[in-house]
């Protein structure tokens, strides 16, 4: 049990270290492509911290929406920027190190999930013993909160997303016509 505690503590501090190192790197690295990759590292570390906070749902949202959605969008936009790929080819060791670290974090998060699953199986109940996770527990879950006391903010978030979507489309469409108008 002591070994498991030390392992868990080490994993926690590894997550903290990854969050901090990724954030500092994303803020300071000159190469923009590397900065976006380091941002992904930091976001993944934050997802690991969410797991330690018994916020399994939020960790999943972080991975799916942030790392899977927003980060890919930013990477896509990064490729617009000039001279990004040239400097990447000059320093491939950075990419290898970043990839290795990301893989290590993914392995750590997976191990943590597996630990929880094993504990759940051996106890025969769902959820951590001491706390509450997002899916079940003594109090109302996130879904009940969203449709109860948080209903107005929830609806506002929906309106916000719709407006953002329409605004994005309108912005891109309007600027597409303007070069033709200027040249014509």
């Amino acid at each position: 049990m002591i070994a498991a505690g030390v392992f868990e503590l080490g994993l926690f501090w590894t997550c903290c270290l990854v969050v901090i190192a990724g954030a500092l790197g994303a803020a300071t690295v000159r190469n923009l492509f590397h900065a976006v990759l380091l941002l992904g590292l930091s976001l993944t570390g934050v997802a690991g911290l969410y797991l330690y906070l018994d916020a399994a749902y939020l960790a999943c949202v972080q991975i799916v929406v942030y790392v899977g959605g927003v980060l890919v969008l930013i990477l896509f936009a990064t490729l617009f920027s000039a001279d990004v790929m040239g400097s990447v080819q000059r320093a491939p060791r950075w990419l290898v190190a970043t990839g290795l670290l990301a893989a290590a974090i993914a392995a750590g998060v997976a191990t943590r999930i597996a630990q929880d699953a094993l504990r759940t199986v051996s106890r025969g109940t769902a959820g951590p013993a001491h706390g509450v996770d997002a899916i079940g527990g003594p109090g109302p879950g996130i879904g009940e909160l969203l449709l109860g006391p948080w209903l107005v903010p929830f609806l506002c978030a929906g309106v916000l997303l719709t407006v953002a979507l329409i605004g994005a489309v309108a912005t891109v469409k309007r600027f597409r016509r303007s070069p033709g108008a200027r040249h014509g």
Partner: protein
Amino acid sequence: MVELGPDGLTGYLVAAAVLFVAGVFAAVARRNAIGVLIGIELMLNAAALQFTAYGRIHAATGDVQGQTAGVFVVVVAAAEAVVALALLFAVYRSAHDIDLEKTRELHS
């Protein structure tokens, strides 16, 4: 109650503070628009992490409002990223550069 480790608050707060500081630095010091966007994302993540960390104080009573606030932060971040990248796309289409120092297209 200063407790280091996954059951205390300190580690999360230190991580969130560094996230926020790095985000502010990136948003201020970067000249590229994507760098500024990275900074904003870092700051939003710091806020969500703090919401969740402080919200766990009430975890014994089954209160998950901190996590719910974190979900809202993620929603806002997604909407913000979509609008920002649409703007970038539009500026790039007209100016062929997204350097904030050089781009003056939206000023006039």
